[in-house]
């Protein structure tokens, strides 16, 4: 068993409406000096796999095929276990 953690973030330069709205809301709540808010996704999953290389290849394929929208998003995979 291996645990994979995937971070999916918008590519540089892509508009992030959610991040923008959060930044405004934080300012409205009186949090000053907050900048550059970006919202992404964080996905955790367990894999029946013991080989690190194979596990990474598998999760990479999942990202390419489903988890990330590679036209506008980047992803990062961390493995553990």
């Amino acid at each position, binding site marked *: 068993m291996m645990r994979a953690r995937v971070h999916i973030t918008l590519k*540089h*330069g*892509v*508009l992030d*409406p959610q991040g923008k709205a959060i930044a*405004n809301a934080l300012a409205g709540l009186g949090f000053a000096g907050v900048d550059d808010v970006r919202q992404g996704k964080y996905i955790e999953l367990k894999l029946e796999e013991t080989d690190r290389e194979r596990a990474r290849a598998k999760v990479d394929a999942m990202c390419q095929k489903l988890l990330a*929208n590679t036209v*506008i998003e*980047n992803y990062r995979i961390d493995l553990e276990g």
Partner: protein
Amino acid sequence: MMAARREPAVDQKLASGMGLSAEEYARILALLGRTPNLTELGIFSAMWSEHCSYKSSKKWLKTLPTTAPWVICGPGENAGVIDIGQGWAAIFKMESHNHPSFIEPYQGAATGVGGILRDVFTMGARPIAIMDPLRFGAPDHPKTRHLVAGVVAGIGGYGNCIGVPTVGGECTFHPSYNGNILVNAMTVGLARADRIFYSKAAGVGNPVIYVGSKTGRDGIHGATMASAEFDERSEEKRPTVQVGDPFTEKLLLEACLELMATDAIVAIQDMGAAGLTSSSFEMASKGGVGIEIDLDRVPTREPGMSAYELMLSESQERMLMILEAGREPEAEAIFRKWELDFAVIGRITDSGRMILRKDGQLAADLEIAPLVASAPEYERPWTPTPARAPLPAAAVPGPPKGMLEALAQLLDTPDLCSKRWVWEQYDHMVMADTAQGPGGDAAVVRIHDSNRALAITTDCTPRYVAADPVMGGRQAVAESWRNLTAVGARPLAITDCMNFGNPQRPEIMGQFVGAIQGMGEACRALDYPVVSGNVSLYNETSGKGIQPTPAIGGVGLVEDLRRSVSLAGRAGLAIYVVGETRGHLGSSVYLRELWGSEDGAPPPVDLAAERRHGDFVRAQILAGHVGACHDTADGGLLVAVAEMAIAGGIGAHLQAAPAGVPAHAFWFGEDQARYVLAIAPDHVAAVTAAAAKANVPLAALGRFTGTALTLPGETAISVAELRRRREAWLPRYMGQA
């Protein structure tokens, strides 16, 4: 801080990378008497692009009828405007977002909706309805499912959030769209007829105002602008996809309408394709004035944007306005209240020139009128589509297991199945004026606080257009007119979205020319002018074009909502068909779905008959003689009756097909100019007499009764079963059943 930027040298190679031909580049050099700088070249390439200049299509678009006593503003503005009486105007337009939606279905479709909404509210209208004609590739193509899911979610994601109901559209499948789906979107809005806003700039000294979202590097293309050379800091290849922000658009909509209630605005235009370039040039050119812009004042999302990038960015949710000088503070207060950017970026001059400054330096200096006037206009060679031989009904076999089983089978196919899976993802009721939402012939949306309504529909039968562009063009217009008529509306005008392949191929150009010809004929015969539209060419991959698809968006007026009807059959009503049924099976759905053939000439469209039959049907509806009405289209009579039965939850007893027409041709033929009427017994005599007087064919088919559809000599099929079959295909295909 800012990375040093080397702008590439301007030459013909660079111009061709931006889509300008050698001849066009030479024309630019001649016009300027010098070599343009990069920003100027970018402006030319945008303004002279197919998208902005209509260089391949203009000649033919000009042949369409665009006037009628009720037309307030025809093509040439952001949207078309018609007078609908009592001081109100309807403002509408349709547009394509095909390519972006293929690359990124959710955002492509969402920003398509955002763009067409802006075209309508920039003229002062509150949008009241969205329609979305969609064409996807073959269901078994590996990309199709993903595209359907993304496009539908994207349209809903934008329309639902902004709170404009999506009340109808189309969704069909054909392998010709495998590599080029069509995502068209139409918006209809309402404004007071004397409060329409136009894009003609005026008033030397008046300020040029930028409002909405900040500008980022969204959608900046041009092959040679490859990031490596142009922006050395960025490792990633910049996506050309834009992300929509419906929340900001909602704010922009409310802020614009609030400002429009004052008289501070001289001119306003959304920043759509080619952003600041096309909006500023179009506004200046319409007003015959000059504009100076200080690009350093444009609100930006990213540091270090160049003049080129600022002028060509396609960031969403932005508008350009000319205000009366001195009105800036009150306008600014409104936009600040809605938490939007507001910047005075320039002013109107009498120089006739576009002067752009960046970092204190001159970034572009172009004379506006010649740039617009000498935009290329091509008369592309074209060859007419060869006529197909008609296919006699006798040459098409009957269904192996009877009419009713064939019906059930047809209802369970991609094109004829219920599209509930799509429209349940759209808020089609928000604004609480939707009298008839998706699922009927035309949507009926009440004019708020009144008992009048607009009827709205979008239509096109691409297989007919492919088989015979002239007939297909006629049919698309006629079908939309019929759909409006079927709810009791008076059809008033159309918008269109001309989706075609590569116009540089004579056979594609021939399709375009033929379709325009047919559309024009139908518009003239039906008093149904074109008031706005959009052209989307080059819809093809590896030399294979899509089925030519001139999508038509029709708008009509329901004078009294209580007189409007739906297609839902009711117990006890007699079923009649208006129009002649010869049993035309060429290019029919029956032929394709049961026998796998797309052969044969499409059904002829007799425009005089269309007019006569439609006017008759409308008069009968308005007289209160009609309980339910449905036009017949794909799948023919039996499909139409079944749809009425399913909608009303009522069975129908049908009589045998008349002698002289093979039964399957009678029930599944796609002859045009027909409607199915459900008539209460005590109105039958009046309707029959009126039909005879108007020289309109009218034939009895049976009666709505019981819980099943019956035909003499066949096993009855329950309406519940028909509904189950009709609801099955899409959820099953999308993996939800």
